[in-house]
């Protein structure tokens, strides 16, 4: 059972307090979008073996959504940050890069 620290309330929360909701930083394509953009938005997701950025909600806690950077292989958590952003914080990306030199970097 994972532990993720909620960036809003600071609690190191057990996975049972949280709700996972897949890949983070997805661009919404609404009215007027092309078929390709719509498909990308609705259906296409990364499935990396390694560094992944995910959406989580501290559902049985403060109720806030946040993002987590996590290794899907080793379950190492590189960091968590508030959901109100379009991309991961630069210092977090640098931290991951340092730990995983082979990582291609954040790709939207």
């Amino acid at each position: 059972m994972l532990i993720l620290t909620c960036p809003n309330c600071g609690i190191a929360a057990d996975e049972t307090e949280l709700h996972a909701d897949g890949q983070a930083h997805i661009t919404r394509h609404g009215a007027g979008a092309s078929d390709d953009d719509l498909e990308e938005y609705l259906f296409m997701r990364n499935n990396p073996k390694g560094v992944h950025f995910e959406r989580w909600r501290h559902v049985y806690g403060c109720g806030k959504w946040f993002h987590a950077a996590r290794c899907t292989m080793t379950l190492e958590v590189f960091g968590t940050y508030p959901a109100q952003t379009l991309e991961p914080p630069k210092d977090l990306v640098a931290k991951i890069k340092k730990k995983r030199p082979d990582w291609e970097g954040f790709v939207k």
Partner: protein
Amino acid sequence: MSTRIQTGGRHLDRSKQVHFNWAGKQLTGYGGDTLASALLANGELLVGRSFKYHRARGLIASGAEEPNALVGLGTGAKFEPNQRATTTELFDGLVAKPQNAWPSLAFDVGAINKMMSRFFPAGFYYKTFIHPRFAWKHLFEPIIRKAAGLGAAPTEKDVDRYEYFYAHVDVLIIGGGIAGLASALAAGQAGASVLLVEQTAHFGGRAVVDGVDIDDEPAEIWVEETLAALREMPNVTIRNRTMGAGVYDHGYATVYERINDHLPEMITDHAPNMDAPRHRLWRVRAGRIVTATGAIERPLSFAGNDIPGVMLAGAVRDYLVNYGASVGDRVVIATNNDDAYRSAIALVEAGLDVPVILDARTTADGELPTLAREIGIRVETGKAISSVKGNKHVTGVGICSQAGEGAELEEIKCDAVAMSGGWSPVVHLWSHCGGKLNWDADQSMFRPDPNRPPLGYDGAGFVHVAGTANGYLDAAGVMEDAIKIGKLAAKETGHKPKATKVPSTFSAPENPIEPIWQMPQGMSRKLQMKTFLDYQNDVKVSDVRLAAQEGYQSVEHTKRYTTLGMATDQGKLSNINGLAILADSLNAEIPAVGTTTFRPPYQPISMGAIAGDARGELFKPIRQSPMHHWIDTNGGFWEPVADWRRPYCFQQNGESVGDAVTREILNTRQNVGLLDASTLGKIIVKGPDAGKFLDMMYTNMMSTLKVGRCRYGLMCTENGFLSDDGVVARIDDETFLCHTTSGGSDRIHAWMEEWLQTEWWDWNVYTANVTEQYAQIAVVGPNARKVLEKIGGMDVSADALPFMAFKDGELGGIKARPYRISFSGELSYEIAVPASQGQAFWDMCMEAGAEFGIQPYGTECLHVMRAEKGFIMIGDETDGTVIPQDLGLSWAVSKKKDDFLGKRAQQRSHMVDPKRWRLVGLKSVEPNEVIPDGAYAIDGTVRDNGVKHMIGRITSSYFSPTLNHAIAMGLVENGPERMGDIIDFPTTDGRVIKAEICDPVFLDPEGTRQNV
């Protein structure tokens, strides 16, 4: 014959006789016995029948790894199948019975399978029952099902109590042998909070049995002193009878504590002074986990290695030293290592006969073999067992050369065999969460690779392995490793380890093991077929070789094909033997074949412990409306609706459910009905951008709604499919109250929050789920206004409160907000009052309404009335694939708005396809024939794949007492263009129901009843 000997038995209290019942026989043991040791002491060697061939089986082991001695324990509500005799402590009044044997253990009809074993090779079921196809379902499967299954399921409800325990510690140490104790002491002295658990009743592990000396005294003294020291430490918690069951992500572990399984009073009745639960499942979050779980001895693979009387050499020693019980008077030893000589020496010292030690190695000249020879034991090197003689018990062994093919050189009479194929570290807990193993060729074992541990959230390894589990078979190595690991775990959890002296630890040195995977080396196929690897599932050397021959290369596939290691013991004894045989068959190295995956729990744990307190009312607590109790005591017939209970109907004077529903519908349509609508979700959406936000959430325009007015709205997912519906009321300029379905309140509130927090976080909107703050009561029917006027307090006239309006005021002195909305087509007020006033207002309505014929009604009446009006129900007309346009709700989908959730997806080609099934009403041609819910319509054509072509399906179906006619709603291809057509609905019993396509609004399409 196995018996109790006069001396020995570290755990025994010979002054205390313990009476128990085995297979209907009254037997006696001593205090401190396990069921297994007591059976052995009573000469009960035969303890079970194997699963597949029903072979007679005896005890093989002395601990958790025992595959054979599974018994049914207790009676009635205390009965539990598949309990291990070796881990069951004896108590007065214990009742146990054997499993898999009919009519009795000694004479078992199923043993005929044994005669047939030539015909039951690996994959037998797959190969045999594949043809003819029909026979599987009707002939083979029922017979196999009857024969399958281990033990019998209890028939009564478990009367015992179970609970969870939550703990956070720096260091969890699993295993209370000298390694676990030394690690705990080192970590405890460093100041770390420590939880030390030991699965048996006793600490000290093998060291206290095997004659290890610590600081020049027997290990037992060091164990007692260390335990005493640990108990003095406030930061150390110690639990025996507590097993580390599973290791999970990020330092999470489950620990299984058997609190009173060994206490007789808990079995016979619930003693009031014993308030503890039976089992406790600890859910531990540890900074570091140290597994000091020791090792398990491997059997040797020789023909007849499963005949009762053949036992692991270490187990023979355990029974002798711990319980003063001997497996036999003349015990032949078969080994490939020095450790088994300890058993030989212990047997001779206890006055028993060891006719020969068969050592498969070519030389045996270490300290222990030398000692064995000195005390007069015959030692034969390079020799093996060609076969064990006997059927229900050992009568002798044939001796052969290990290097040969099994030609018998000599037969030796004996009544037991002690075997040792070496030791396998217990790496299960290390491996549960991904810890990797290395093959140690020198010691012929898999041992943990400290460089590839399971990782915690911080990327650091969180499991360490200490002592024998880490691959150290000598006591001095164990002690040094354990102290080092204990200190490391403390350091890594932020503590400062103290400099301590490693106790001088001594055990007799041992020469290297020689890997022996089958005995003799070139055993014939005939011998392979009598050589068991997995005792519980009857998997033999021949089965694994056959699997390899048939092309199985992966150990995981071989496991499933042969069922090797799939029994309840999870292959603890002989998985390594099995994969070594597989490697040999494939001409591969053992590490290249690898191990199967280790999965939690380490040993089976009780279902009760897994459930904990979550039983009965606590299994899933239900939500209750403020009128729940009144409904319960006034004939309410409950049905589950999401987490709520709602009354399906109110039964009066012994009437049937169906009659009650009919009465409620007619009464509501003719007089007035009262509905508890409190379960409807109520979400306040507030802020300067609230209207803009709701325009995105709903398909229709909400920002234009006038204060004081209501509007029915639809919500869709981004895929365009309907997800929820409800009435939105505008409270003031910046405040809306959104009603959701009963099941949708939490989900929709979360949905709104998700968009506000993750997409439009710059919009100034706040939400609050106030579902349980209000009781909502619907007063429905032609007399509804009269009831409210009689209660009085505010003007509820058509002018003051027109249809689709609401007003804040007071009714009968209670703060109230009546909404003029109708889900029935009748004149209707849904009145929200504070939850605490709900029952009072309900009572007021019942009292005031008495003269107008008021009666409460339930959810089925609500459903029928809404279907009569053609109103959709989320979950009936929708199933996650339906868009508003399918349901004739295009009027509620804004064409003016730039965007809303689902708008773009609804424009996809398939969504605008005119052939999509669309909502219509359906009237059965035969007025009383109600079409089954979910029935499909067909047009008589057949598709390419031979299936009847379907053109629609029923989404709601009822008998309408108002119209005295069966009515239904359904989605039909081109339905709205086919008014008046008659279509066919075949039923599962072979009939065809004919129905006419019609407008889904069956009653009062002009709305004259509601708009008064």
